[in-house]
């Protein structure tokens, strides 16, 4: 579909001149509406005649490809019309510099509107810096903000200034002026480079003393890259250029792409992906069985509670959501987090509850449903404040129930954490890792089985993509970390990956 649907926003952002040229075409300067509507009417008439002429099932079936083609192409007429109108607007007297004003208009009016003002501004900043570091240029506001928070967080005054400038910046201001004072664009960039190089030095030391596999593992562990980032790093980053790592990285990347959840691909493939409103994207996910995916995601959020929801739009990881109950929001391409429709939330939450029980009791979800005792049902009903769990359950009741479930959530988290801590009693990194590796081979505890079941379910459901789901639980080799399960899971993934090199 994408090939039939030019992304006007991108075009608009890139080149007002090009669109003005388009608008200068005679057919767009006069009778624009008549032309567009006329074309739409012609296509409509053609299709209608074809459908009406079909007298058998096979004839009607044979007509469908052409109908689909017509429908696919139809919004391009709207694109053309909008391009023409925007070009005309830029010609007004109040914008004497046509080319510059056209571009500014488009960026202000459309890009800023669709992507979100802050998202747009942050993106511009981030791209400048990220490009200089060889990082992915396709990150979004969420990443940019996290980036800024992470790297300027130890300088509260200055970072506040930067944040402030991010939220109040005029879209026409250059990066340099927005990052004024001690944090010019250059100093901001240098600061991040220094951070990067500092980590690089640590990695280099390791490289001298350990084998290549460990270096890869260490880099992965420290940097929390997504797989896309890894591939970017492989191409652009000096640390990843060694041929030794390429097969592994390529394999990971291929696996990532091939296992991309269908609903997510459906969303990212949408021609209006960059511009669609959150509710449209959410609906698109739901229609592609996204509800199932979301419920799994929320179940894991629920268990671990410190926010590692895979974002749906920008490709970054949301590590900021501290959830009492379930995470019912989506991070969208505009860089903002939006609540899901309440009806969806209720249904997703219901499924998530079943999944939580499934993990906790080492049962399949169908077994959970079958095995729920009368007490369980009563408890669930009490939590939900209704006679029966359903999509009609009032959101307020669900919210109340989820707050009450926070206790259960903490219990489950503690059980999981204790399981891992039991397996890895030594905080010293090497021993800790070794202990986990050994324990993993011989783990028979119920708690560990719970963990393994959970992990297997995620991996079975999403394939290698599951590792991405699990990865952002940080790889901090700290036995006191509440995210040690992430280490445990990632460790196995790395072992598996290393064995393939």
């Amino acid at each position, binding site marked *: 579909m994408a090939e039939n649907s030019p992304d006007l926003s991108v075009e608009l952002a890139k080149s007002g001149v090009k669109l003005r040229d388009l608008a200068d075409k005679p057919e767009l300067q006069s009778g624009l509406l008549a032309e567009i509507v006329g074309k739409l*009417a012609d296509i409509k008439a053609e299709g209608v005649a074809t459908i009406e002429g079909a007298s058998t099932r096979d004839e*009607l079936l044979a007509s469908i490809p052409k109908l689909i083609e017509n*429908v696919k192409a*139809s919004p391009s007429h709207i694109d053309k019309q909008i391009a023409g109108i925007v070009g005309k607007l830029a010609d007004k007297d109040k914008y004497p510099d046509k080319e510059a004003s056209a571009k500014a208009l488009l960026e202000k009016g*459309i890009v800023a509107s669709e992507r979100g003002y802050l998202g747009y501004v942050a993106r511009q900043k981030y791209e400048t810096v990220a490009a200089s570091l060889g990082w992915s240029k396709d990150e979004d506001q969420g990443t940019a903000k996290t980036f800024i928070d992470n790297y300027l967080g130890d300088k509260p005054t200055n970072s506040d200034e930067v944040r402030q400038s991010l939220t109040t910046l005029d879209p026409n201001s250059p990066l340099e002026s927005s990052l004024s004072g001690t944090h010019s664009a250059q100093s901001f960039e240098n600061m991040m480079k220094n951070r990067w190089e500092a980590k690089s030095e640590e990695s280099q030391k390791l490289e001298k003393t350990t084998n290549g596999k460990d270096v890869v593992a260490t880099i992965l562990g420290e940097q929390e890259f997504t797989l896309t980032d890894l591939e970017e790093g492989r191409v652009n980053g000096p640390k990843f250029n060694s041929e030794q790592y390429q097969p592994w990285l390529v394999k990971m990347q291929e696996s990532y792409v091939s296992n991309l959840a269908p609903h997510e691909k459906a969303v990212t493939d949408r*021609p209006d992906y960059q*511009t669609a*409103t959150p509710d449209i994207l959410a609906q698109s996910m739901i229609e592609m069985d996204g509800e199932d995916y979301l419920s799994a995601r929320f179940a894991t959020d629920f268990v671990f509670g410190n926010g590692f929801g895979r974002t749906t739009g920008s490709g970054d990881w949301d590590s900021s959501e501290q959830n009492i109950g379930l995470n019912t929001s989506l991070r969208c391409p505009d860089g*903002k987090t939006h609540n899901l429709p309440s009806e969806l939330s209720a249904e997703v939450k219901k499924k998530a509850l079943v999944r939580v029980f499934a993990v906790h009791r080492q049962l399949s979800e169908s077994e959970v449903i079958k095995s729920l005792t009368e007490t369980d049902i009563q408890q669930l009903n009490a939590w939900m404040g209704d006679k029966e769990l359903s999509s009609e359950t009032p959101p307020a009741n669900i919210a109340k129930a989820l707050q009450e479930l926070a206790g259960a959530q903490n219990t489950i988290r503690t059980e999981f954490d204790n399981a891992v801590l039991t397996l890895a009693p030594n905080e010293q990194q090497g021993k800790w890792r070794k202990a986990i590796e050994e324990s993993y081979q011989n783990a028979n505890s119920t708690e560990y089985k719970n963990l393994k079941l959970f992990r297997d379910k995620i991996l079975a459901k999403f394939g290698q993509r599951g590792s991405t789901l699990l990865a952002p639980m940080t790889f901090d080799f700290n036995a006191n970390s509440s995210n040690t399960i992430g280490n445990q899971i990632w460790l196995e993934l790395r072992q598996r990956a290393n064995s393939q090199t």
Partner: protein
Amino acid sequence: MDTTQSTTPLQSLARNRVVAYDITQATLRKITEIEAKLKLLDENDKETFTKLKDELLALYRAHFDSLSKIAENNEDLGKNE
């Protein structure tokens, strides 16, 4: 919803474009559904055939009518600037 929504003509144009693509997505989805039903249909089931044909016809008409309305609205937005 996006809290940054505004009402300038340019922004409305942008949203109209999104709507046009969303309508298109929905139409394509429904056509695919109808196609799937047709493939499973018994050739002799004329009643269901007619029903599906009418459904397809209405869907197709509605799609282009909707886009035409968007085009008209876009034109108004252009004049209002």
